[in-house]
């Protein structure tokens, strides 16, 4: 329990900073827009239409969309724009904050008493004097209500910034969801909700103060917010130079390997931070761009998704091909294979497979029409699935994506009959699953490979610290480590599992 809450202060600070910055940027854009909108009906229609449109994009997608946009922009200006982390999160969240502020501002300005505005004009106020002396103070309470809404939305949506590599309370939620550590999920949710309620209450006090014309109250509540932001700013910002950033995709094995790498680098004297829960498509780009320094990927994933290859040569040839491509195209160093493979392995409940007499994908093809297929969220979109499907002519009764842990649950409970399991997953043995053979060789090899960012190419100390991991992790060890995190009882944290794994390496 205490371990789950140990990371809360650090992540809370990052979360608050991100939400605060996004709210400020949203205000900077929305306020002038609201004034312009009240003066020109055309501007108002376009601005409100745009803000409403943004609101219809799911927040997760909006965050993800900024990654290619920023990559493209960065390429346009010759590099230097970070496509991951703080910037895309800030931009996406600011866009989200826009609508409530803009809408309340425009509505407030439109509903001002015309007599008051006529008096302001007749007294000889210029447009700007009217805005600052009359309109702004009268609209302030309505505007403040909009700012409160924006703040709560922003703090909520900021949990999703984890997926583009910005640390937030979402780190706890995503990691907890992946490893079925509900205490961790709860810690993230409670902290995010508490933050939202606290900020909302303070802004509510300010709103009350504005409406009652009690300046002291307004300044006191806003000052408290500012102090909170300043406190958050102190420890976590910015990362000191020389800090190594370790990337991880969003599943247990990746969390464990990231910690394993992190522990070794810490022992070698590096300061380490983690960017966990990265989308599979985002991770390699982040490495090539230098947003992260090191992470583990799988040869087949890069072979099919990044290199767009459809042929399936032997495992070693794929690793060599990936190494050459990564070096020449992106300057990325492939330090070596860790020694195990995490391939897609079609799996069924053992008793079910025996009863049906299914041992290979060929056997499966004949009966697939009666069987339900459960996958992880991305499998149905991946080229590997297209390859397997066309090689064996697979057509299931139904095919549904799940979070990986729930995919195993679906198979165990009988909701699904076949899953594309991961060959290094401890649950294959624990759940007594039958793995189906791939006689036609449609699924490429998925050797776990250690990839380093271009700037670590000449860093001998860095490479020396990690080289002992090459070829050192047999698949049985990895399965056991994964199972320690994934199992339902006596669960271990990825950090503990990484230490267990390191002990077994016999350094």
């Amino acid at each position, binding site marked *: 329990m205490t371990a789950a809450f140990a990371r809360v202060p650090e992540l809370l600070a990052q979360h608050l900073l991100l939400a605060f910055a996004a709210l400020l940027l949203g205000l900077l854009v929305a306020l002038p827009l609201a004034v312009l909108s009240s003066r020109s009906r055309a501007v108002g229609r376009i601005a409100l239409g745009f803000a409403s449109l943004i609101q219809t994009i799911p927040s997760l997608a909006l965050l993800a969309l900024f990654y290619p946009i920023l990559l493209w922009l960065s390429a346009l200006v010759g590099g230097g724009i970070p496509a991951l982390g703080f910037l895309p999160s800030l931009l996406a969240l600011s866009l989200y904050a826009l609508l409530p502020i803009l809408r309340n501002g425009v509505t407030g300005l439109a509903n001002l*008493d*015309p*007599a*008051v505005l*006529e008096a302001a*004009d007749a*007294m*000889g106020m*210029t447009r700007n004097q009217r805005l600052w002396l009359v309109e702004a103070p009268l609209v302030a309470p309505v505007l403040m209500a909009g700012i409160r809404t924006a703040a709560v939305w922003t703090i909520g949506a900021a949990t999703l910034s984890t997926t583009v590599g910005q640390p937030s309370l979402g780190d706890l939620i995503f990691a907890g969801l992946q490893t079925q550590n509900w205490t961790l999920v709860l810690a993230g949710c409670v902290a995010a909700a508490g933050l939202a309620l606290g900020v909302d209450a303070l802004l509510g006090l300010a709103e009350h103060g504005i409406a009652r014309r009690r300046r002291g109250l307004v300044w006191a509540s806003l000052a408290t917010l500012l102090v909170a932001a300043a406190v958050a700013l102190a420890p976590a910002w910015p990362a000191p130079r020389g800090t190594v950033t370790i990337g991880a995709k969003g599943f247990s094995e990746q969390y464990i390997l990231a910690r394993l790498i992190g522990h070794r680098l810490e022992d070698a004297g590096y300061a380490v931070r983690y960017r966990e829960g990265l989308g599979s498509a985002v991770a390699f780009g982040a490495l090539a761009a230098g947003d992260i320094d090191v992470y583990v990927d799988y040869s087949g994933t890069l072979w099919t998704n990044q290199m767009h290859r459809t042929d399936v040569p032997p495992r070693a040839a794929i690793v060599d091909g990936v190494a050459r491509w990564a070096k020449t195209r992106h300057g990325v160093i492939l330090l070596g294979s860790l020694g195990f493979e995490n391939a897609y392995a079609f799996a069924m409940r053992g008793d079910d497979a025996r009863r049906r007499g299914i041992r290979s994908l060929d056997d499966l093809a004949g009966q697939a029409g009666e069987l339900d297929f459960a996958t992880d969220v991305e499998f149905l979109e991946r080229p590997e699935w297209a390859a397997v499907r066309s090689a064996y002519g697979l057509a299931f009764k139904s095919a549904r994506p799940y979070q990986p842990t729930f995919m195993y649950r679906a198979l165990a409970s009988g909701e699904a009959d076949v899953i594309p399991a991961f060959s290094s997953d401890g649950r294959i043995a624990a759940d007594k699953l039958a793995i189906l053979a791939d006689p036609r060789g449609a699924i490429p090899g998925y050797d776990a490979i250690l990839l380093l960012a271009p700037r670590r190419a000449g860093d001998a100390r860095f490479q020396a610290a990690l080289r002992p991991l090459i070829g050192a992790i047999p698949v049985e060890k990895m399965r056991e480590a994964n199972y320690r995190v994934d199992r339902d009882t006596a669960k271990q944290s990825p950090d503990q599992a990484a230490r267990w794994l390191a002990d077994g390496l016999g350094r």
Partner: protein
Amino acid sequence: MPEQSRSVTFKNVSKTYAGGVKAVDGVSLEVSGGCFVALVGASGSGKSTLLKTVNRLVDPSAGEVLIDGAPVAAEPPHLLRRRIGYVFQNIGLFPHMTVAQNVAIGLKLAGEREPAARVAELLALVELDPALGARMPDALSGGQRQRVGVARALACSPGLLLMDEPFGALDPVTRDGLGKAIRALHARIGLTTILVTHDMAEALLLADRVLVMAAGRIVADATPRDLLAGKAGGAADALVAVPREQARRLAALGE
């Protein structure tokens, strides 16, 4: 302080609104300095529109308005308006400012830093307790609010006071009291005053000169005495007949 009362000249002023409605139709008129003029007419006769061409809340479609011989269009509207007092039916006090801040707003716009003494003087001028200065407008009665409106309009010693149905929302007793107060102020500080009203009795009792408007034109222009004597023509006679008849019936009741 004595003020420089100012003359107002309308030269062939017309105003056509979008949609083709002609609110004011070729009005030419001279209002001499120090005069109290009432502009009377039914709703939609164009009297408010004509009034607002003076401080450019409405810009005429044709013709021009001059104050002391200078065209009002010659300077930016906000500078023009700072030298013209304007009081209207809905008052438009700034609800987020105290009474004193409302009265002082014109002085503040003109760059005055210490308006307290002038504010007290203005509140006294409109017969309000200076202690009311600390209140918010919504804590005042309707009559008190309009007195604040007048004080605010007079803050910068404008010399010219435009009033658009200023007593329209008030009860008859308050209305009568405020009317007398305005008339007294007009004389005391030497204003030129143009009062728009639909109430002929009010116009007859307050003004030196009564203009009757109908369909955007001036249809009668006479002193109250001449109007009552029936020297101003048919349209004016019909309007004058109402208060005259009421006065006779009231007198008959008392006998």
